[in-house]
């Protein structure tokens, strides 16, 4: 359908639009008009992606001065979904206004691992090894050598791209990663380099957060983006963590050992070069005297990672004399590794700021701060000079240089914490030296400064006023949308008491109480006997989950649960968990029913959606507070309090509620499952998914936690669903499931949708 929002014609590929989608478009347009940043919260599963794409591409059509849309997603899977939606939109636009006007070039960009089509290299398993395999075949000196010596292998796809592809632009259209690979195979061009080349000409670029936020990557990929771009961060609820991780480094014993080995190897190569090709080293020395900035025009295939510090912090001056010569630099690194090793060998926790750390470093080991700053670039240059292609073997020394450069560059917003062992397992020595970034706004600041409009959007950004403070920016629009449901397909409950009316909580002093454990067990047992198909349980931590499962096993609760449903448990092992998930799905599909035990902050099952019958019920056992004794968290809390005046308690609750929500909400990806193919003949089939969520902890009942839930969940959280005991919850669940199993009335679902006529009518009414 085609409609007009305040003078802008918007092309929307479906025949109906939800009210909140329309409202979202209006707000988004205001932000774009104001050329400012905005923060928008809209419930998951209401078709955010297509709303964003359709408004922004229509905006681009109307304002050709806009450069491009940069759409950032978290995973490759999401990226493909965005591109699929975009393709549908593009087809519709072509139909409406002709293919000549609706010409767009949209493509996804990912790492070599996802794009490589070389038969051998693409078979590698890790990202680093694919990168290294690629470099072995495409580095400039390898190709130069291959011209004279036919025995040296090169990549035919890269050669093909180099000969023709780099000159010709891609024909307009929408390219997913898969399409790029297919196109690459057809033409014999390397899809990775083709994509990197083409993002300059593209109207829409879809890639990972890292390509904008991590300075190591963005320095290479996103350097040439114009100011007139619109940047969208989708699913951006943990954008602050991504920012922090981009600038944080952890060093462990094995990193340092590996770094030593690497340095040893570098020494060998240097001495070999000295005998055979001393000239090269001298050339490099001269180049370094002129400054690192000179090396900017490297060949495309030669640069792999840029400097880890943010663009404006990079010094454009000559490399200091004491690390200009290769052997001096290697000796410098050796001293640095030695020093770090000494620091790591401690039995007390040490917390330091970067300034005091560099000061003691220079007095104790003679490593001056200025030289530290250049470590990463110096190493980069050295590896190039020595024509090292196996970069994956030199990861450890890269990590060390990364650390040194960051420490040398920043004086604020970071802290260095050395812990001799994990607090939770004090018997196992596992020393770690952490450089942790405390300020999420550091990494994202260049993005806000550079681009005209940045859109941060997600299903859960509550409390929405905290994000501007965390990320330190001034949005022109902040809005949280509610949703119009065709029926109450969302049933949140807060369970505060067990079946014996005693309060349940995962509070530290209560969590080992057998009464609480039994009450939680009874709750699970009652629920698996009431809810069909898949049930997902989240616990606050791995150790808590292990403990509670053990006690349930001893109490015989687990055996009773198994009579109703099969039990699957998430572990920290990736392969194991993937297998468990697969079998979980199978058990749900074939009607046996299954329970999945997971951890609220668990990394493994993160990003897996439990939609439809895979997650009819999600139980959150306890409030997943972060481990408050963690030194890093404390440092960050202190920093937030001092710099942004955010109270510790506020941040902790926000974080805990948000992360429990994120776990719980994974079942609601397809609240409105919109299937375009079924929109044929003006009949929309609104196959509404449904599900329940139980927050099982008395602390959720407190207003300070409850108010941190997004508006659209609060509106579903009825008074009688608060402060429940187990039997009341079971009763509500039973009723809810029966009600949801009834066929939905098509008449009612129509009323939440707007057709083109409705919109025209609304536009005619001035006061809408």
């Amino acid at each position: 359908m085609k409609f007009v929002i305040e003078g802008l014609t918007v092309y929307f590929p479906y025949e109906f639009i939800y009210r909140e989608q329309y409202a979202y478009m209006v707000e988004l347009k205001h932000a774009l008009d104001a050329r400012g940043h905005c923060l928008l919260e809209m419930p998951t599963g209401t078709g955010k992606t297509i709303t964003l794409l359709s408004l922004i591409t229509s905006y681009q059509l109307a304002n050709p001065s806009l450069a491009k849309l940069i759409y950032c997603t978290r995973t490759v899977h999401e990226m493909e979904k965005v591109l699929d939606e975009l393709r549908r939109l593009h087809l519709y636009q072509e139909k409406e206004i002709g293919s000549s006007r609706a010409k767009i070039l949209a493509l996804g960009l990912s790492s070599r691992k996802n794009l490589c089509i070389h038969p051998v290299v693409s078979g590698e398993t890790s990202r680093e090894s694919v990168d290294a395999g690629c470099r072995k075949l495409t580095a400039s000196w390898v190709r130069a050598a291959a011209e004279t010596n036919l025995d040296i292998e090169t990549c035919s796809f890269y050669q093909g791209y180099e000969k023709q592809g780099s000159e010709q632009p891609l024909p307009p259209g929408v390219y997913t990663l898969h399409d790029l690979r297919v196109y690459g195979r057809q033409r014999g061009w390397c899809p990775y380099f083709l994509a990197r080349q083409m993002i300059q000409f593209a109207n829409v670029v879809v890639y990972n957060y890292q390509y904008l936020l991590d300075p190591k990557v963005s320095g290479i990929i996103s350097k040439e983006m114009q100011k007139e771009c619109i940047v969208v961060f989708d699913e951006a609820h943990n954008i602050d963590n991504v920012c922090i991780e981009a600038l944080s480094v952890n060093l462990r014993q094995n990193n340092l050992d590996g770094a030593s080995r690497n340095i040893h190897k570098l020494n060998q190569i240097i001495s070999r070069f000295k005998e055979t090709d001393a000239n090269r080293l001298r050339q490099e020395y001269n180049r370094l005297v002129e400054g690192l900035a000179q090396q900017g025009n490297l060949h495309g295939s030669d640069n792999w990672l840029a400097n880890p510090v943010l663009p404006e912090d990079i010094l454009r001056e000559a490399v200091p004399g004491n690390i200009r010569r290769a052997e001096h630099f290697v000796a410098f690194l050796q001293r640095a590794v030695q020093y770090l090793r000494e620091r790591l060998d401690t039995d007390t926790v040490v917390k330091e700021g970067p300034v005091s750390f560099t000061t003691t470093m220079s007095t104790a080991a003679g490593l001056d701060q200025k030289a530290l700053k250049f470590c990463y670039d110096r190493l980069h240059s050295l590896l190039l000079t020595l024509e090292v292609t196996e970069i994956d073997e030199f990861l450890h020394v890269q990590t060390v240089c990364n650390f040194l450069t960051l420490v040398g560059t920043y004086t604020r917003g970071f802290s260095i914490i050395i812990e001799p062992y994990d607090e939770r397992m004090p018997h196992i020595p596992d020393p770690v030296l952490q450089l942790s970034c405390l300020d999420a706004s550091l990494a994202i600041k260049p993005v806000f400064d550079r681009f005209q409009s940045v859109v941060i959007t997600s299903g859960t950004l509550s409390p929405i006023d905290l994000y501007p403070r965390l990320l330190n920016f001034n949005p022109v629009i902040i809005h949280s949308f509610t949703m119009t449901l065709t029926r109450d397909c969302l049933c949140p409950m807060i369970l505060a008491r067990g079946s014996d009316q005693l309060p349940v909580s995962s509070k530290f002093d209560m969590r080992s109480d057998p009464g609480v454990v039994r009450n939680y067990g009874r709750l699970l047992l009652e629920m698996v006997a009431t809810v069909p198909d898949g049930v997902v349980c989240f616990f606050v931590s791995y150790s808590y989950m292990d403990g509670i499962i053990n006690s349930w096993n001893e109490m015989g609760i687990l055996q009773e649960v198994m009579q109703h449903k099969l039990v699957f448990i998430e572990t920290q092992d990736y392969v194991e968990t993937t297998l468990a998930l697969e079998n979980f799905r199978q058990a749900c599909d074939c009607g046996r029913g299954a329970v999945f035990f997971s951890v609220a902050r668990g990394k493994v099952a993160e990003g897996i959606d439990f939609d439809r019958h895979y997650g009819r019920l999600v139980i959150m056992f306890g409030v997943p507070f972060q481990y408050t004794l963690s030194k890093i968290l404390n440092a960050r809390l202190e920093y937030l309090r001092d710099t942004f005046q955010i109270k510790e308690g506020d941040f902790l609750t926000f974080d805990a509620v948000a992360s429990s929500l994120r776990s719980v909400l994974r079942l609601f990806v397809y609240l409105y499952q919109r299937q375009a193919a079924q929109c044929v003949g003006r009949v929309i089939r609104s196959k509404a998914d449904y599900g329940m969520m139980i927050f099982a902890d008395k602390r959720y009942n407190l207003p300070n936690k409850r108010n941190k839930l997004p508006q659209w969940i609060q509106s579903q959280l009825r008074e009688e669903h608060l402060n429940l005991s187990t039997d009341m919850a079971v009763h509500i669940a039973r009723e809810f499931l029966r009600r949801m199993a009834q066929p939905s009335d098509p008449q009612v679902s129509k009323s939440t949708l707007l057709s083109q006529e409705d919109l025209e009518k609304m536009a005619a009414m001035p006061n809408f």
Partner: protein
Amino acid sequence: MEEEDKAPDMEAWERAYADDRSWESLIEDESGLLKAGDDVQQQRQHRRRLIQASGPRIQRGIIRYLCLILDFSRAAGEIDFRPSRMAVVAKAVEDFVREYFDQNPLSQLGIIVMKNGIASVVTELSGSPEAHIRALKSNLESFGEASLQNGLELAHTYVQHIPSYGHREVVIVFSALSTCDPGNILETVKKCKAARMKCSVVGLTAEIYICKHISQETGGSYAVAMNEGHLKEILLEHVPPPAAMPDASSASLVRMGFPQRGSEGAVAICACHKELKIGGGYICPRCRARVCELPTECSLCGLALVSSAHLARSYHHLFPIPTFDELLVDASLRGKSSFAGSCFGCRIQLSGSGSLRLRCPRCKRDFCFDCDVYIHESLHNCPGCETLQEEAVT
């Protein structure tokens, strides 16, 4: 001691009311009087089913072979339906069986029960409602797991040798929330689909993915009961003969016998019970065997035995009377003489009786809700249209 024994009784007594929440459906009218629920809403609800069922005149499968699979697993012992799910199911099934044979005299039915992980045959496919009900009543106990796969496999062997003109149907009444299968149920579903079995599921608790899958794959329906009344209602939805399957065999002749009723007082050996019987009975026109009930299949020569009344009773499914239109009682029309008047069936005053006003599209006569139900569900003739024809004749 005595008091302790009584305590749980009290709780159960209270819980019966707590679970029903009957007070929630009470409605206060303008004058402050309490009414039990909204009559008109309920009537509309009832009619919705009728309207959905009526479509354009379609070919229907009159000769049905229906296999009823009942779940008597542990879950059937739950007491969220009173006195237990199993008892409620048995009651509803009893009604269903009677109604089924009443409306489908040419069809047959068999009952399978799932319990303890296995499926067992209660009654073979046959035509006598009383025999089914008797067998079912003697089989009421619940334990163990339910296995949909075993149930479907058994039903599959059951219907394999029935003639190609018969409609193969399976109706599963499912109390459990999970199925414990020996193998891959998805394969069994494919097999059922290949055998043109139409599997429908009536759930008692919640929507279960596999049940939905089974019904979607095989072209059946899936519904979940809200309460006892609703359970009966959705079970009875399976009574009218379904639309003929598109790939069903083309019209073919079916050989049938119309037996004569034996003279009263005659003594003969009954072919179905294999014992001496006095009086009644029907004589197979081909082999002269005596059978007790119609319709059935002659146990000697295998001829289908029906009576002409049975055929006539099936006839209305093919030529149903149209659904009546609801006339909305507009406030402006109320009181006008044209809108007053009474039900053509029972002469009750239609305005202010709390009933819907329904009009036959053919003869344009108005009827009340009760008459509408009677006409469509039992009479299968519209009195208005019939009198019109009579007038035309005279």
